[in-house]
C-alpha cells in the first residue's frame, strides 16, 4: 500500500516542485511550458517514420511465426543451464516489443501465480529490462544517426546479463 501511495505521488510531486521553484525565481511558467511543449510536438512527428519502420519489421517477425519457431528451438538447450522453458518467449521478445512482452507477462503471471518462482522471475525480468532495440531505434533515429556502432551489441549483451541475473537471483532471494 505504502509503495502504491509513493509511486502515485511521484509524478504530481515532480511537476509541482519544478513549477514552484521556477515560479519563485520569476519565470513566466505557463508561457515557458507552452514554448517547450511545441518542441515536443515537433519531435513526435519526426519520430513517426522511425516508428512505422520498426513496428512493421517486428510485426512481420511475429506474424510469420518465426518468433515461435525460435522459441521452440532454443527451449531445450536453455533449460539445461537452469532457464525455465515457460519464460523463454518473454526472453526473446523483450528487446523488440514492449507491448508484446507485457502482454505475455500478464498472461503467464496469472497462469503460474504471481508468487511462484516463474511469476517472480518474470516480474524481475520485466522490471529490470528495457525494450532495447526499440528504444535505441527511436533515440538514434531522432538524432539522425545512421551508424550506431557498438550500441546494439553492448545493450543486448548487458540486457541479457541482467535477465540471467534475474533467473538466478530469484532462486536465492
Amino acid at each position, binding site marked *: 500500500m505504502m509503495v502504491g501511495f509513493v509511486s502515485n505521488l511521484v509524478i504530481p510531486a515532480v511537476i509541482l516542485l519544478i513549477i514552484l521553484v521556477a515560479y519563485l525565481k520569476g519565470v513566466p511558467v505557463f508561457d515557458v511550458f507552452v514554448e517547450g511543449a511545441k518542441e515536443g510536438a515537433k519531435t513526435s*512527428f519526426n519520430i513517426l517514420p522511425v516508428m512505422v519502420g520498426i513496428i512493421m519489421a517486428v510485426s512481420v517477425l511475429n506474424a510469420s511465426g*518465426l518468433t515461435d519457431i525460435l522459441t521452440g528451438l532454443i527451449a531445450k538447450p536453455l533449460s539445461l543451464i537452469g532457464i525455465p522453458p515457460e519464460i523463454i518467449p518473454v526472453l526473446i521478445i523483450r528487446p523488440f516489443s514492449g507491448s508484446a512482452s507485457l502482454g505475455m507477462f500478464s498472461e503467464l503471471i496469472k497462469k503460474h501465480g504471481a508468487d511462484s518462482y516463474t511469476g517472480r522471475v518474470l516480474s524481475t525480468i520485466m522490471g529490470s529490462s528495457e525494450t532495447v532495440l526499440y528504444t535505441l531505434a527511436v533515440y538514434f533515429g531522432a538524432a539522425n544517426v545512421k551508424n550506431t556502432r*557498438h550500441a546494439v551489441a553492448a545493450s543486448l549483451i548487458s540486457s541479457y546479463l541482467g535477465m540471467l541475473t534475474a533467473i538466478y537471483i530469484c532462486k536465492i532471494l
Partner: protein
Amino acid sequence: MLNVIWIIMIFAGVATSLLTGRTKEVSEAILESCVSSVELVITMLGAMCLWTGIMEVARKGGLVDSLARLLKRIFKYLFPGIPDEHPANGAIAMSISADLLGLGNAATPLGIMAMKELSNVNHNSPVASNAMVMFGVLNAACIQIIPATVLTIRQQAGSLNATSVMPCIWIASFVSAVSGVILAKVMEKRVYI
C-alpha cells in the same frame, strides 16, 4: 547497423511466412502495423508535449543545472568530451532522473532530447559518438527505484507480497547497468561493426 537489422528482420519474417504458410497473416500485420505506429505516436504526443514543456520550465528555473552539477563527476567519466556548460549535461541528468523515478512516459521524451543534445556535441554526425552509445546502453538497463508497472500487474494477478521482487529487480538492473558501462567502454576502443 539499423539498415542491416531492418532488412534481416523483414527478410527472415517473409521467408518464414512462405514456409509456414502464414503469408496472409504477415500481409495483414504489415498494414496493421502502420495503424498501431500512428496510434503509438498520437498516444505519446501528449506526454511528449507535457514533459518537454515541464523540462523547459525546469531549465529556466535552474533545476536542471543544479541536477547536472550534482552528477558532474559521474558524467565526466561516462560521457567524456561534453563541454561543462553544454545543455547535454542537463538533458542527460533529467532523463536519468526520470528513469530512476519511474516516470514511464516522461523517460522517452527526455531520453530523445538528451540524445539530440549529445548529437549536437557530436556535430550532428551520422556516426554515433562514444557518449551517445553509452547513453543508449544505460537506458537499456532500465534502472528504477519503484517499478510501478510490474508491481501493479503483480497485485492484479493476486500476489500476496507484490513488493517482494523489488530487491531482485534492483540487483538485476544493477548488473545490467554495470556490465553495460564496462562493455561500452571496452568496445568503444575497437571497430567491431
